[in-house]
């Protein structure tokens, strides 16, 4: 897979230069003067994914604490975690349609954006999509914190909040972190729902209401009719996406090692 990506991407890199391809925001398929650069898609991908991570944090962490600590092993917890896990089973096209028919009019009514598409809409839907990944794995790690540690803290007179802050988070920190990296990876590669909501314009987004494009969605959109240099450029974007995901995972692992 890696080999075919590289061999497919070589013509684009040769033609534009690796550096220029990555840092150029120009995407002009005009037959006589083709210009392809990945910067606008890289920013679109990174921006939506990290925003999604930020949006999902205040929802997934409480869910993880609820099911992994407060109501651990109780019926409520199992019902809630089942419902959250169900979110992971919903096909992304359904999320896209929900975003298109429900979230987009809402954003238009709130006056956040005049046509409702854009980075914000895409990030919000992405956030909901990655909650189950972040929440269920985090809950797993939180519930794995040894009982002795927690009981020790309680016996010293700590309140529940203090136990969570001073015992559970330090003990399961690297695991929780790993689950968020996994969620981020999922957000980076998400295609369908994002394509339906981001507006698909090939420019660098400067505000949350701006439309943009991500690496995955530009590939999904343009691969069918692409040939020659354009095809190679799209494959090169695929390669870059692959590398970005790998780098983020690598950084994640590094931080996890540091933490534990």
């Amino acid at each position: 897979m890696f080999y075919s990506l590289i061999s497919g991407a070589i013509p684009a890199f040769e033609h534009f230069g690796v550096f220029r391809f990555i840092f150029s925001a120009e995407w002009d398929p005009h037959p006589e003067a083709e210009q392809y650069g990945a910067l606008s898609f890289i920013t679109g991908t990174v921006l939506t994914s990290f925003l999604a991570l930020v949006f999902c944090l205040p929802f997934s962490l409480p869910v993880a604490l609820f099911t992994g600590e407060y109501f651990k092993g109780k019926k409520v917890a199992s019902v809630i975690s089942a419902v959250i896990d169900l979110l992971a089973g919903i096909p992304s096209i359904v999320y896209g349609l929900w975003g298109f028919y429900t979230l987009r009019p809402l954003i238009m009514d709130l006056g956040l954006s005049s046509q409702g598409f854009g980075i914000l809409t895409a990030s919000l839907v992405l956030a909901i999509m990655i909650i189950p990944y972040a929440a269920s794995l985090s809950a797993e790690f939180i519930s794995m914190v040894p009982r002795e540690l927690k009981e020790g803290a309680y016996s010293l007179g700590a309140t529940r909040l203090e136990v969570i802050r001073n015992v559970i988070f330090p003990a399961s920190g690297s695991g929780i972190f790993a689950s968020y990296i996994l969620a981020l990876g999922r957000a980076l590669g998400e295609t369908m729902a994002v394509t339906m909501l981001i507006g698909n314009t090939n420019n660098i987004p400067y505000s949350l209401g701006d439309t943009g494009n991500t690496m995955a969605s530009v590939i999904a959109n343009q691969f069918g009719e692409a040939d020659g240099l354009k095809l190679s450029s799209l494959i090169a974007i695929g390669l870059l996406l692959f590398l970005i995901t790998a780098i983020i995972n690598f950084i994640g692992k590094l931080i996890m090692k540091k933490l534990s």
Partner: protein
Amino acid sequence: MNKLLIVILVLALAACGNSKKNKAGSTNAEDITLTGAGATFPLPYYNLAFKTYKDSTGVAVTYGGIGSGGGIRSLKDRIVDFAGSDAFLSDKEISEMPSQTIHIPTCLGAVVLAYNLPEVKDLKLTGEIIADIYLGKITNWKDPRIKAINTHASLPDKAIHAVYRSDGSGTTYVFSDYLSKVNETWATQVGTGKALKWPAGIAAKGNPGVAGTISQTEGAIGYIGSEYAFALKIPVALLQNQAGNYITPSTESISAAASTELPADTRTMITNSQAADAYPISCFTWIILYKEQAYNNHTLQQAEANIKLLHWMLSDAAQQLTTKVHYSPLPQTAKENAKLLLQSVTFNGAPLLK
């Protein structure tokens, strides 16, 4: 275990029965399967036409709507019998094909401008105005230039959201070809192509994506394939043609666009047609095949079936099907030119169609 055996036995018997029936029905034809791939624009028509063809002759034709680019790639690799395309091959592209090709027009379609303004009926537009909307120069429906030609309607004070195709598409090609013909700035700044560098607007994938975005966004306008718009019954704008008339897109006005002079190889864009009652963004869709049908392990039988199919596509029986799925039939000149082209197709130098 017993049940399983019975199921297998029943299935086997059913299979035997089927093949017997086929053999009785037609001679040899069931051995031949033709494959084509390409443009998605004519897909509904091809599905209907090829099914009708199979019902009457027994020759199965499979057509994959993978996009014009993909279809031409497949033809180049000689893995399909023919390719479908909404844009004809340029001289340069023809020279890159491994051998000579011919273009057979199969039906006509158009690109229509759908809009979402609940209070406005029969919106009138000119090519200049459309170009300026997509160039980002006209941004509000109250623009004096739109008002001047729409005195019958009260235009709302709303922003215009221009919607375009995010995926490469023959529809985009036809639309931009028209804009390049009518607007100088468009021709130099944006040009013609299946994918463009759009100065303004938002994008959605495929006809369904664009149509969905328009119907969900008040003040939106966008271009979609006529067959899709007609089937959906979405409001579409009347366009001013070269003769100065405002024309509603319909099967008749689209066919009228091709009633002018055509080159012998049928490779021409009929956008901005001179005919007085022509809808200005009309287009042919073609099937492209090799002039010399003897290549790789392409058999004589298969080549003959291929030509017969295309000959049938030009017949009245096939052309009548076009309007059923909201396309327009070919005018007489186009059919005659195409038949002449088919007569030039050979197998090892011998003409296939007598």
